[in-house]
């Protein structure tokens, strides 16, 4: 029997007042795949990521996660939110050490301290920031902050990693590290949805490209589309 897709969107619409910000008639996202979500500014990419992260309820339609329709009430959403990670374009880092930031999500889940520490160390190593644990997160450069945010997401081993313009305003070495880390995730079973207006850095690795135009899903295509 074929396992259900990680996400299934049926008639998903999101309105802000009179404006239709997102309109996706039907779409499936499978586990362990890398999707590029492309479109101009204001095309609905961030809205779609927020919905996939279970942070923003759609105005209409059904979102199914692993075959089960999502119930948009707080108690039902928390366990779902804990399976996915959303990385914002300008991620907010808490005013504490890098290690505390990376370990935050583990702490709120009640992960045992020793195990959490190991995950923090591994995640920082994965993004090339070994030895940064004791530094104040607020004092890092833009690229380093983005890598810390990625490490924070990686520490959770999420089923889905949703990224909103992760290369925007990031220096080249940091962008290369982020790109390389992202490219390894689908092989580990993580579904990656990466919103970008410039799909070039990951075009070769993407399983599919989802194109949004003025909120509407204008098409999907192969890895080399975009």
């Amino acid at each position, binding site marked *: 029997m074929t396992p259900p897709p990680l996400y299934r969107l049926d008639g998903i619409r999101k309105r802000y007042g009179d404006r239709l910000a997102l309109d996706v008639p039907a779409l499936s996202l499978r586990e362990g795949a890398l999707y590029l979500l492309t479109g101009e500014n204001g095309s609905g990419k961030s809205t779609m990521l927020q919905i996939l*992260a279970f*942070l923003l309820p759609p105005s209409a339609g059904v979102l199914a996660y692993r075959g089960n329709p999502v119930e948009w009430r*707080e108690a039902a959403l*928390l366990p779902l*939110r*804990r399976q996915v*990670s*959303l990385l*914002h374009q300008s*991620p*907010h880092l*808490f*005013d*504490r050490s890098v290690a505390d930031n990376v370990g*935050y*999500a583990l702490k*709120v*889940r009640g992960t045992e301290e020793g195990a959490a520490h190991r995950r923090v160390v591994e995640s920082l190593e994965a993004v090339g920031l070994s030895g940064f644990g004791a530094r104040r997160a607020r004092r890092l450069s833009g690229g380093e902050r983005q890598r810390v945010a990625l490490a*924070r997401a990686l520490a*959770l081993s999420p089923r889905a990693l949703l990224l909103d313009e992760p290369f925007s305003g990031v220096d080249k070495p940091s962008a290369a590290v982020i790109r390389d880390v992202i490219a390894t995730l689908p092989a580990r079973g993580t579904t990656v949805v990466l919103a970008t207006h410039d799909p070039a850095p990951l075009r070769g690795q993407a399983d599919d490209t989802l194109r949004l135009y003025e909120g509407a899903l204008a098409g999907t295509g192969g890895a080399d589309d975009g």
Partner: protein
Amino acid sequence: MGFLAESLRASAALIAGLDPDLRSAVWVSLYVSFWSTILASAAGVPLGLWIGLSHFPLKRPAITALNSLTAVPTVLIGLLVYGFISRQGPLGGFGLLFTPGAIIVGDAILATPIVANFTLAAARGADPAIVPTALTLGATRAQSTLTLVSEIRFGVVAAVISGFGRVVSEVGVAMMLGGNIRGFTRTMTTAIALETSKGEFALGIALGLVLLAVAFAVNVLLHLLQQK
């Protein structure tokens, strides 16, 4: 001028010799200020956070009311509390009037709006990304609120220090509810008022200098926190 210089010399001698009246007034002041600040913080910090972070129909009038309460004269608070804790008042049975406890209650009422207002300002000035980020990372609503409090901790501490600064320097509540009883409810400010009215400037100046030092220390602390 000679009189003032002589008073200043005498006050320096009182401070250096740790005069018992001076020590007692300083101790009572710090004692009542400490406990009233604790009470005001216990009420004012959650109140400021609640108003700052929640959405309700009368939020704007509530903020205006809170702002207005910071300007209530100390003697009015003294009068109201006096009405409640005097022998004929509804809380007269507790025997609080003219005790340090009475000053603590009055000062706590005085400082609560100040602590709440500063906390409210800190909460409203917090980065709006804090709570969504915490939720994105799997925090519960309660955990995300605690994270926000942790992020604005310097603002909250500044609110508490401001409350302390207000009560340590007030005179109306201490005079009306404490009764200025020597060695028992006499604070620095009530002692200064009394000594000045008696023409005993030396002790008044000595206490004024200590009060100034306390106020200065509080402000330095506030300044350091604001730079964080």
